[in-house]
């Protein structure tokens, strides 16, 4: 189990609409949100929290371009430099018949590259146990957490009280 040694205070909400209102309120009150845990992707949550856009798709483009180059340059090198062969009277450098494999490797590199990057930057991998504040956040509860170093306990409690949290708990993770 990973340890961050953080004192965390968190509130549990039972609906994403209430959670979104709470997040917006925390944001306007300039309270530093540590993290929000939800059972499914809540649209608008990243904007409400002020998270920056994911750049994963840009990484995907680079991986894809790498695949295109690998396939096209690789086949070109093999058929013109390494072992030039005539197949069925076609030229040594038959560009149209490189298209299918070039396309497939573009997709292959982009998909694998992005997926591996995704799991790596999220710190997700087989055997990893990330600390969880509440087990019900993968079921039907929505959790908003503050780091106690950033937000005082009293302030957090008052906040959760006013935004309709069902429960308020503290935990060291």
């Amino acid at each position, binding site marked *: 189990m990973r340890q961050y040694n953080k004192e965390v205070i968190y509130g549990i909400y039972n609906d994403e609409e209430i959670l979104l209102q709470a997040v917006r309120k925390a944001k306007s009150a300039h309270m530093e949100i540590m993290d929000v845990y939800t059972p499914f992707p809540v649209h608008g949550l990243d904007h409400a929290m002020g998270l920056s856009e994911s750049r994963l798709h840009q990484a995907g483009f680079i991986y894809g371009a790498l695949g295109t180059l690998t396939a096209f340059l690789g086949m070109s090198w093999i058929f013109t430099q390494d072992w030039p062969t005539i*197949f069925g009277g076609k030229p040594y450098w038959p560009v149209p018949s490189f298209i299918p494999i070039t396309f497939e490797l573009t997709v292959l590199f982009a998909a694998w590259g992005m997926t591996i990057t995704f799991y790596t930057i999220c710190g997700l991998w087989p055997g990893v146990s990330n600390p969880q504040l509440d087990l019900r956040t993968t079921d039907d509860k929505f959790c908003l957490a503050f780091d106690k170093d950033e937000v005082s306990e009293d302030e957090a409690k008052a906040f959760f009280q006013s935004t309709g949290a069902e429960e308020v708990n503290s935990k060291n993770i």
Partner: protein
Amino acid sequence: MAGGYVAPVRRPLVEGHKSYHQITEDLCSPTERTPSRAWIIAFTLSVAVLAFGLFCIVWTIWMGTGSWNLNRTIGWGYDITNFVWWIGIGHAGTLISAILMLFRQRWRTGVNRAAEAMTIFAVICAALFPVIHVGRVWVVYYFFPYPNTRGSLWPNFNSPLLWDVFAISTYFSVSLLFWYTGLVPDFATLRNRASGLRKKIYNTLSFGWTGSAKHWQRWESLSLVLAGLSTPLVLSVHTIVSFDFATSVIPGWHTTIFPPYFVAGAIFSGFAMVQTLMIITRKILKLEEYITLEHIESMNKVILVTGTIVGVAYLTELFIAWYSGYVYEQFAFFNRAMGIYWWSYFGMMACNVISPQIFWVKKYRRSIFVTFFMSIFVNIGMWFERFVIIATTLARDYLPSSWSYYYPTWVEIGIFVGTIGLFFTLYMIFTRVAPVVAIAEVKHILKVGGDQYIGENRTHTSHQAHESHSEAHSENH
């Protein structure tokens, strides 16, 4: 069905006034119960069939491909027929998960998980055939370009068969990534309900997923791009499979209509297989409120459209063969419809073109009974289509002295039946290990696609609360 977020003209995608917790319960419980008697019997049967298939595979490898009824002219028979058939079946999974995701079709959430699983299992079954057919299975890695001590001697990158190797392996691995990334949050849900060894296993499978907002944001970004990549990928795969035939100079194969015609046929047969699986699954796992009649009707519409496209393609082929004025092409098609394999052409036409027209009638589109039988018909028809294209063409080639009649040996039939056993074995293990319906995605569409509206400060627990609240809400509009 009052106001709220629910568009009045649309029927709900999730029935039964579900709460988030109820969804978790309904979709997790099939993996937590001890297996039912029906499951055990069906599983045993599948494994037995698979075992016979394995026996036939070992027989082929031991005795050589001479144990199949292939000869000098008929180089392809049951093996490639089954390969193309299985690959085609796989296509519906990617269509549902990727293309319908890009088109923002919310009904996909009810069936995408199982359909993607079907894709992966179908591709496994398909890939088996070319691998065995090479004869010397132990050197099958010769397919791939790698630096070797033969000079280095490379594969022929001009060959559609090599394109196929790249297409199928890319398709399999990208589908697997897409499917597994969708499964990770659901495995976390299962993990948090489990204890002991089960918890440990699901903890490994869930990669330590917590549901953090940033992770979800990236997860959605990844899913969207994977969908965008899978969409042209799935179209390319069957296009390349059709190139195996279309780039040859055999009359009846050498046609430009093959790529779109193969892709339409693939989606057609794939949706039929999804229907077969879903109708059984929703009944046995009691998921009728998640995989609703709406889903079945939507898929029947796809079957009707693609079946009709395939029908138009058959007729176009006949017309072009006649119009070309090319006597070999004309003979190939005359022979297909009227020759020694007339029965398979007739089966293809009846199952693929004529029978799906029943789905113009709404009553039949929404009938479970009709849909189930139609789904079987369509898959038989699509199998005939592949057989028609391959066997009829090769049995009557340019040289009448090599004309013959191809029929499979028991070994070939055994391997085909064995892959059906393999497919169902894998699918049944899947229903025990993972949620058959994507939990997080169904929760995500619940408020826009469910049959209830849950407003602010209202816990979504009771039916009455829903009724009174939605009435109050509709007055506001």
